[in-house]
């Protein structure tokens, strides 16, 4: 009975979504999007319009997004902090291949992640994507060496400073141009399609990249450590 109800519900939902198919025909951008497309270079000098939208036109949204990510990571850390009752995970030592591979790939992955978030205003990618690549490097490190201790003090310091600096850049826009996160007059806009262009956009995206990278790394560390047996402080493993 329950399954029949589920099936009917799914069919109705599928039918409703199916009516979206004609929307798949190419449409022209609306008025607001047209403004972004036509005046994006003139107003921000950033080649990547998606980055211009995320960091400048809807920069306040991105501040909220970073906050949501921080909250979910903090929530997961809070929920998994007490390890009593969690089943200890019996982990085999990682293989030679994984250890060597992690040692080889760690530095290139960090550099690649940094490259992605530094070039967010020029090419596909940006703070979130670059941060995810940085976190994947940390995950490789944690997989290869389960007892690796991440520098938590440094990471939380970096994350706080990045988040705080994001707000400060926004306030600078408020003071200079009269609107929060404004890109006019805070930093020189530079030349289109150069690394030093886009005003505050690369600055903010670098901060976002640092913040997302450290947050996701901390999340991975929390999740991997939740499988450890609840140990007494100072105990060895």
């Amino acid at each position, binding site marked *: 009975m329950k*399954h029949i109800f*589920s099936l009917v*519900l*799914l069919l109705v*939902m*599928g039918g409703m*979504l199916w009516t*979206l*198919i*004609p*929307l*798949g*025909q*190419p*449409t022209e*951008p*609306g008025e*607001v*999007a047209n403004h*972004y*497309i*036509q005046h*994006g*270079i003139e107003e921000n000098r950033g*080649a*990547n*319009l*998606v980055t*211009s*939208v*995320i960091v400048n036109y*809807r920069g306040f*949204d*991105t501040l909220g*997004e970073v906050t*949501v*990510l921080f*909250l*979910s*990571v903090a*929530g*997961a850390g809070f*929920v*998994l902090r007490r390890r*009593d*009752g*969690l*089943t200890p995970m019996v982990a085999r030592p990682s293989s030679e291949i994984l250890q060597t591979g992690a040692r080889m790939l760690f530095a290139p992955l960090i550099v690649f992640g940094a490259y992605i978030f530094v070039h967010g205003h*020029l*090419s*596909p990618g*940006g703070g*979130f994507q670059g941060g995810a690549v940085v976190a994947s490097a940390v995950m490789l490190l944690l997989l290869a060496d389960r007892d690796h201790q991440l520098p938590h003090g440094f990471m939380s310091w970096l994350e706080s400073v990045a988040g705080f600096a994001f707000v400060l850049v926004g306030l600078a826009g408020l003071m200079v141009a009269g609107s929060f996160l404004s890109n006019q007059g805070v930093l020189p806009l530079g030349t*289109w*399609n150069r690394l030093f262009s886009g005003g505050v956009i690369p600055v903010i995206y670098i901060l976002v990249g640092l913040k*997302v990278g450290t947050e996701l790394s901390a*999340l991975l560390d*929390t*999740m991997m450590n*939740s499988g450890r047996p609840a140990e007494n402080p100072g105990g060895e493993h």
Partner: protein
Amino acid sequence: MSTLTPSTLYLGTAIALIIVGFAGLLVRRNILKMVLGFALVDTGIHLLIATLGSNPGKAAPILNTAELAADPSLVVDPVPQALVLTAIVIGLGVTALMLAYVVRLFALKKTLDVSEFGRLKW
């Protein structure tokens, strides 16, 4: 609907993903599989929004050549892509938090069957 364009294919895949994900949410009793269903719905919605903002005849919204910078109307709408980028990040955070709850719930009852968790208070 007479021709099968790439957009139709993407939309069909997106709808299928959403339906499969909701089926998992409704039918499965295992909390972990319900989280997986949620992740499938999430992915389907991302694909749906990204497809609605796509246009096979136009370039990606990155004006990094002189030709595109001279005539920006050759690129697609950047707003859906920006929205999907936001949604992916939020989806990741939500999924991670849900998985943390699943770990905690399993520690409490030693089962993942959702019907065992009838009480509001852990």
